[in-house]
């Protein structure tokens, strides 16, 4: 039996919106909630995750005929852990300060269920190029939620936006730093993990609301088929 042909458009839609790892699958919540307290942290971790996800999807897809099913999970973890170590060493070499801030959350990418999930449910069953693309869009879906969450929490928590972006982009972007709230107000509850849960919950609610509106719109513009007619027997007509 041949698998159905892969539509890249659908893959992209799935990764970025419909099956978003952070908003719908709720995978990788630990880094999502742990480091999303500023844009720069979120961006740093998101980029690291994309790199690992793309590479692991590609490699696992290449090896999919060699890996026995019974020990596939340890095999995937070895691939992912090696890649994570590479990323960690690279970050230590080029963005040392960011590496220090993110701390344990870089090695913990290994246990990010979003990556293992894609390896098991997609890369192990599909050829290399779709797997590469799936890794890229899933990672991008994770990244945009992470950055948006980071922006929300940085704005309402520390009252700044894009602070310390030079940790990633160098000294050029020092003046990106915006101050939203007066200096003396720091809302600790938003910076601490409860804020991450609340903001993530709000984002999920927003996504559901947008989906609901879209569905409603589609329903109202869809042509009405004749045939079933029911008579309303209660209330005012």
């Amino acid at each position: 039996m041949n698998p159905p042909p892969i539509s890249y458009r659908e893959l992209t839609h799935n990764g970025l919106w419909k099956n978003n790892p952070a908003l719908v699958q709720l995978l990788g919540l630990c880094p999502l909630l742990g480091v999303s307290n500023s844009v720069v942290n979120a961006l740093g971790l998101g980029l690291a995750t994309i790199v690992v996800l793309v590479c692991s999807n590609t490699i696992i897809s290449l090896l999919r005929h060699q890996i026995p099913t019974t020990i596939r999970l340890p095999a995937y973890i070895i691939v992912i852990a090696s890649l994570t170590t590479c990323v960690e060493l690279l970050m230590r070499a080029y963005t040392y300060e960011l590496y220090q801030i993110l701390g344990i959350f870089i090695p913990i990418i290994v246990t990010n269920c979003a990556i293992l999930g894609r390896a098991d449910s997609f890369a192990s069953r599909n050829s290399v190029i779709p797997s590469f693309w799936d890794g890229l869009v899933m990672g991008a879906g994770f990244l945009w939620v992470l950055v948006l969450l980071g922006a929300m929490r940085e704005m309402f928590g520390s009252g700044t936006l894009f602070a310390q972006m030079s940790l990633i982009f160098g000294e050029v972007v020092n003046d990106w730093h915006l101050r939203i709230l007066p200096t003396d107000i720091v809302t600790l509850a938003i910076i601490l993990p409860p804020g991450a849960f609340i903001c993530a919950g709000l984002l999920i609610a927003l996504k559901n609301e947008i989906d609901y509106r879209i569905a409603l719109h589609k329903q109202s513009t869809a042509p009405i088929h004749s045939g079933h007619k029911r008579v309303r027997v209660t209330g005012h007509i």
Partner: protein
Amino acid sequence: MLPRTSSPFLESQHNTGWIMRQVVLAAIPGTAMTIYWAGWGVFANIIIASLTALTLEAIVFLLRRRSVLFYLSDYSALVTALLLGVALPGSAPWWIAVSGSAFAIIIAKHLYGGLGYNPFNPAMAGYVFLLISFPLPMTQWPELGNVDGVTAATPLEFLQQNTTLSMAELWNGEILPFGPHDGFAWINIAFLLGGIYMLARKIFTWHAPVSMLVTLGLASAFFYDNGSATSQGSPLFHWFNGATMLGAFFIITEPVTSATHPLGRLIYGTAIGLAVFIIRAWGTYPEAIAFAVLLMNFAAPLIDRYTQSRVYGH
């Protein structure tokens, strides 16, 4: 002809609006006493919190496409704002009351589905949000009875920081209990009176408040050693300090977030009393009512599950 209507045929006069108005009425003496001792800043906080709460409640009901006037007239937002405002230090800047009641109304109440569906007491959720977010302005209480902006540690903070003085030395033997300068005792007595009034009007049953106060008294009596330096305060001290009476009669009796069955309410009150004593005696925060209440709000559905009466026939 007789009009045909569906059940229920006996209508209770005790709708939500009536109950909430009784709660506001019962809270007046305690509130007035707090304002007398802690200054007009508390009054300002209550006003700011109420205006914010009512405005946001109206906006949320507009967004939810509900009748604004109908729901605003149940006074529940006002009660939340009142309880939150009374708990805030009078010297706190205005945005404290605003963000606290915004958190209480939007996050703790309406995001969970509005009145009747909130698992946590909105006022206490707002208070804890503020306490965790802004520890500095939230712990600067003016010295009671001296409202010229002098901040001082509350008796509970004194007790927590004290390591060397005995109880009698700590307060020179004159303030506690019920000395003329013991503002917290007078505030608590006023809230106790309000609570007894509500009990008499059958707004709530006696189970939760009585079990909470008894447990708190027993626990503090058990660990009380006649006032040495390591003492945790006598039962009277714990009963009439901090927000004990406010908590016992106005917070833990909230019907939505507490257990429902009488036995469940006994368990609920006992656990809160115990948690209050544990946090006050060995926790990092001097006052514990809000944390204890939120903790047991979590547990209320579980308590309900094990204490509900069996339906006849099952």
